[in-house]
């Protein structure tokens, strides 16, 4: 009896996504339903690591077999779900699902900043966006995507916000670690160019790679070096 297959049967019949805790509860109470079955009893207490391994193997197998339904872990809970390619047929089958309206651009931007930088205050979010976020924050709170998580240790003790489990479900994320380019956006430190030439305003020599989202860790800011002495004597280039 493979643990993997047992989990498959359980998740197949589940009415909702199951967390590790729930899966372990199922395994723990199974012996009550099987008289003196050693196998069942043997699996009564399974280590979490074993469980995760089995689940991941299961998910992998389905992926390898290119099944139209796969095992996914969203917000820490496991469930079988269909692949997006089959949506037209499933929508025809299930009919119209009530879904909340899509998020607006400002809402997505605010949410992005909040998700990567949490816990974060409104002021910090506004600092990045350059505009106020009051209306948007209200929407996000009402949708259950963000919530207050505490207060900042500064003057005024402003509220800090973070994302919720609903947020993870809404975007199909396993956990906050699954955020795209998490390392980079959590603490964006842009590398300062070697020298900012003053004769030609705004010109810099940094490679444009910094602009694209990468998954590599950014180096820390370098010191601003001395200005190019050759530029000092030249007349200002900018027209009025």
């Amino acid at each position, binding site marked *: 009896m493979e643990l993997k297959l047992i989990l498959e049967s359980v998740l197949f019949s589940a009415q909702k996504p199951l967390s590790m805790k729930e899966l372990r509860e199922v395994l723990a109470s199974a012996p009550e339903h099987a008289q003196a079955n050693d196998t069942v009893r043997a699996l009564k207490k399974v280590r979490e690591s074993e469980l995760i391994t089995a689940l991941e193997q299961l998910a992998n197998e389905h992926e390898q077999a290119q099944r139209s*339904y796969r095992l996914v872990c969203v917000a820490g809970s496991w469930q079988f779900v269909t692949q*997006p390619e089959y949506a037209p047929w499933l929508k025809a089958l299930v009919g119209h699902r009530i879904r909340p309206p899509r998020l607006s651009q400002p809402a997505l931007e605010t*949410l992005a900043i909040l998700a990567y930088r949490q816990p974060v205050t409104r002021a910090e979010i506004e600092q*990045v*966006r350059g505009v*106020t976020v009051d209306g948007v924050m209200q929407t996000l709170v009402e949708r259950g995507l963000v919530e207050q998580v505490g207060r900042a240790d500064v003057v005024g003790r402003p509220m800090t916000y973070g994302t919720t489990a609903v947020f993870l479900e809404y975007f199909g994320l396993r956990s906050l670690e699954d955020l795209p380019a998490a390392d980079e956006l959590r603490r964006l430190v842009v590398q300062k160019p070697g020298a900012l030439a003053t004769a030609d*305003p705004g010109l810099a020599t940094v490679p444009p790679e910094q602009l694209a989202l990468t998954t590599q860790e950014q180096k820390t800011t370098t010191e601003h070096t001395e200005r190019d002495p050759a530029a000092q004597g030249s007349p200002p*280039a900018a027209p009025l």
Partner: protein
Amino acid sequence: MAEYKVKFEVFEGPLDLLLYLIKKEEVDIYEVNLTQLATQFIEYIETMRMLDLEIAGEFLVMASTLMYIKSRELLPVEQQAQVDAEDDGQDPRWELIRQLVEYKKFKDAAAQFQRLEARQEDIFPRLPGKLEFDAPMPRPEVSIFDLVNAVNAVLKRFNQREDLRDIFDDKWTVSEKIEHLLRLASERSPLKFSDLFEGITSRSEVVVTFLALLELIRLKQLTVLQREPFGDIEICRSPPSAQPPEAATVADAPLRSGLGVEEIQQSS
């Protein structure tokens, strides 16, 4: 200008506009000519002003920053305000570029979120659970807007009657209503929102009762519940552990929507 129907890009904020202008020039953020950018930005603001569009404060702040940067560029290096090597944050050009780069990256991240959002719409779980998973999560917490909505409905009933403009003494104070509500909530649990306004004969009494309710909610002496969106609001006394020791005045009431007593009476 009324005859013209100009299709005008409305930007969320100054950073949004700057990124747009930079994209238009098809240059890298690091290579952008800030002076030229400043000029274009100001032109845009001017056009907005001509078209009688409201300009948010943030745009003006950005405009002044850009002017500052532009003016600095016009001075020969010796006369520019010195930027120390340690003063990392002081170079306004660098600060602006840093801000633009950061914002752009989050914009890209937001686009990714949007893709994920769309993808999720096409994914169906094994046994679609009850609507709870697909519909917006039911909020057990009642927001101030639900309360205001509810009291508005009550106030509407009094709309027709107030033809006479007699001025009556306010026979009820908030403190009295507070006591009244607490008593009601102890007698009947849970209390329906409409129960609070039984036997009330005037708008101002409705308002005073509502204020008392808000105060009690703020003091955590009463809890409100709404079992389904736009459903009935239920009120009950909070368990003793939730109550803070000191009472406070009505002035501290959390009327976040900014409604004062006068405004409630005027709005109809």
